[in-house]
């Protein structure tokens, strides 16, 4: 029994993305959904996915070598 809901029972308004995500997590990581709040948290991913989709044109893998620590050093105050 998950918190607040019988195990395996979806919330009434649960988006379609939740069940496939749960299945993918089970397959790839062997982790079962621990509670209803976890399921609720997956619902929250819809907004993140929408944001990533909106940014898709401007977000991409950086081809050039670009170490973060090097960027920290290059951007430090003394070299402003």
């Amino acid at each position, binding site marked *: 029994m998950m*918190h*607040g809901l019988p195990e395996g029972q979806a919330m009434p308004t649960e988006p379609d993305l939740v069940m496939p*995500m749960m299945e*993918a*997590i089970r397959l*790839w*990581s*062997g*982790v*079962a*959904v*621990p*509670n*209803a*709040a*976890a*399921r*609720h*948290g*997956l619902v*929250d*991913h819809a907004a*993140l996915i929408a*944001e*990533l989709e909106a*940014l898709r044109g*401007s*977000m*991409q*893998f*950086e081809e050039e070598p*670009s*170490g*973060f*620590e*090097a*960027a*920290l*050093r*290059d*951007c*430090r*105050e*003394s070299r*402003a």
Partner: protein
Amino acid sequence: MNAPVAGADLAELSMTEAADAFARGEVRAEALVRACLARIEAHDSKVNSVVRLDREAALEAAAAQDRARAAGQTLGPLAGAPMMHKDMYYRAGKVSTCGSKIRADFVPKVTATVLERLDAAGAIDMGTLNMAEFAQNPTGHNAHLGHCHNPWGLDYCTGGSSSGSGAGVAARFFTAALGSDTGGSIRLPATICGVTGLKATQTRVSRHGVMPLSFSCDNVGPLVRTARDAARFLRVTAGRDPKDPTSAAEPVPDYEAALTGSVKGMKIAVCETYFLDGADAPVVAAFEAALATLREAGAEVTRIAAPSLRAIAAYTALVSRVEGAAIHANWMREHPGDYAIHLSARLYGGYPIPAHLYVEGLSRRGPLLRQFVAEALTGHDLVATPTLRTRVPTLAETDIDADPANWSRFMAVSANTRPFNYLGLPTVSIPCGFDDRGLPVGLQLAGRPFAEATVLRAADAFQQMTDWHRRAPVL
């Protein structure tokens, strides 16, 4: 010994005031420790900030400091200052629960470098503090140790994950505390409890012997009363550590020497988007009043656009969650019921995030840092934001364990702090007012990499012009 500081005032002293009074011979270390112990014994039953109180060890350490001073020995810069630390800094042979049931009996074999440096500076370690389970929530809820309560209003959250650190410094239980900051876990309890919290540049302070949460975004730092406290604390703890190969070799300056008390000519940027989106009116009012104070003191405040923030915020939401999920994968498979509901729920959300987005997020971190610096910190010394966009929520309003519908409010708490972890920039939170319910509001100031001296100079100047950081809750 010079004229002793009045006993009733000892717990009110800031870290540097206590250490300086001790160095001048105005107070004994034992008296400082006893004053803090008395505060804890009188009030921690309400606040619940303390996990383990090493009373006798603290008194012995204080007596040793008193003997050292009496013998004319050289004193460390933190000598005599009573401290307690988040229960995730390992001390060999001592239990470090990390706020969890899973590590309730965990005894590390190593001591954190940062604890060794504080010990060497003469700080008095009185024990360990409440925290979010595995440092994984921004509110201070803890199902295993009991929730930590805000000294300004016991029904309100303390902020997390360094809940006991923020609450205890505010309650005058000790002068300083280590917190850790992966998405705001120093700055949030600092702002919510009305104290000062510093997250230094990523790599500035060693993480050896510290429970990991996110290898990319974890930071070690203090919660204290004043920017001057933070400056001295950082000088003691910062610097290259052979035991932490990710620690920076940058020289460690005398941060206190940079505290001129002036912001005249300093240029401060305020981003027109993101940090004030959906902000509560009392928070905006306190933030604008703080900007006005800085402007009156000679700082130039400019509204700017920072288009990179949208991508920064999106990547920020990915990196630490994926890393946290990876760290906890075995326990999530084998002991999921040993986590609090909100924590297993949060960790679970890290598993479906595609690896290519995580790798992309890491690959863009350097370029986005350069872009944000070009947009916001070229021609400006600092970026200013409210530390928390909303009024301080109650524990009930952010309790996912009781009601999963509180999820969005819970996650929104760290919206303004998380981007600076992805960017790795030094960032301080200082008190700048109170909301309409009497809970503190914080001002967040961020600077270029390794510009802690500039960040602290502005924070110290603000504290010399205001008294928000001096106000204490009534318990």
